[in-house]
């Protein structure tokens, strides 16, 4: 059976807000682990032959 799912404006709004929150958390985690790596290994980690 083909069904069309139409989100209500409230559901669209809450889904968008949840998506933004997840994105912010994921980006924050990336930044956190990036900074942690730099601190643990020191800035010398950047000085390597490319």
């Amino acid at each position, binding site marked *: 059976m083909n069904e069309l799912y139409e989100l*209500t404006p409230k559901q669209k709004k809450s889904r968008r807000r949840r998506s933004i929150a997840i994105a912010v958390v994921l980006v924050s985690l990336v930044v956190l682990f990036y900074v942690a790596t730099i601190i643990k290994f020191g800035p010398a980690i950047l000085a390597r032959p490319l």
Partner: protein
Amino acid sequence: MAITGEHESLTGSQIGLSEADPRDYFELLKPRVMSLVVFTAFVGLIMAPGTIHPFFGAVAILCIAVGAGASGALNMWYDADIDAIMSRTARRPIPDGRVTRSEALIFGLVLSAFSVMTLGLLVNWVASALLAFTIFFYAVVYTMWLKRSTPQNIVIGGAAGAFPPMIGWASVTGSISWDSVVLFLIIFLWTPPHFWALALFKQTDYGNAGVPMMPNVAGVRSTQKQILAYALVTAFVGVLPYFMGFAGLAYGLLAAGLGIGFVWYAFQVYRMDADDKVMKPAKAMFGYSLIYLFGLFAMLLIDSALTRFGVWA
């Protein structure tokens, strides 16, 4: 949401699509409890001998906060049925219909895994193991097992709330010491009189929900006696950091003063008529108990910071 079709007309809740807002998820973390956890963990971290890079110190506090929040979400998942009955908890996201039980469960499990793994990978595995044990203790031992089966629920379950300063301490030292055990004991022994004071004036709520809190099972009189006994022991343990030498005289004096106050409030509860409907002394005891714990840990923080910066020896 609605399904548009010739024969179907279903509402959003029937389909099960979420209308939950990020704020609803944040509420699952029990932010007020989390703030106390963050504070006591921070004190443990600052008091611990040794040093930690400020960034990793912040990471440790973040992980402890998220781990505590995750256990709060798991607690709300499991307790949604009784939360709906009690006036204090009826507006929580699950009984209020804003978040489904399965959403709360997944949220709690994901945050638990992330907080424990991040703490282990970036700080140390002793602190990480302690955090994992705390989440397990609160979600499984307290919430699933003790809470609905024994009036000693809060006595044993209180350990979960007492671990954060130990985790903060272990984040710096990578170990457990007697000093950190004393910090644990202060919160552990403080928890029963704090919650029993609440249970006295919320007795009907707990009774309706079928939670065997001490006043409902052993009676008001027995609870009053036990509150006083625990308050005496808590006040004694509260001054131990001074006598064990890891807090200064200023802390010792404040802890003694606040401890006398704690016992005095407990004594007022002890003197309260068991048939008292308003239970003003129990409400006052509940309020003071928060000031007491905050006062002790704030002074430990100040004392430790001033000693570290050489303001006093």
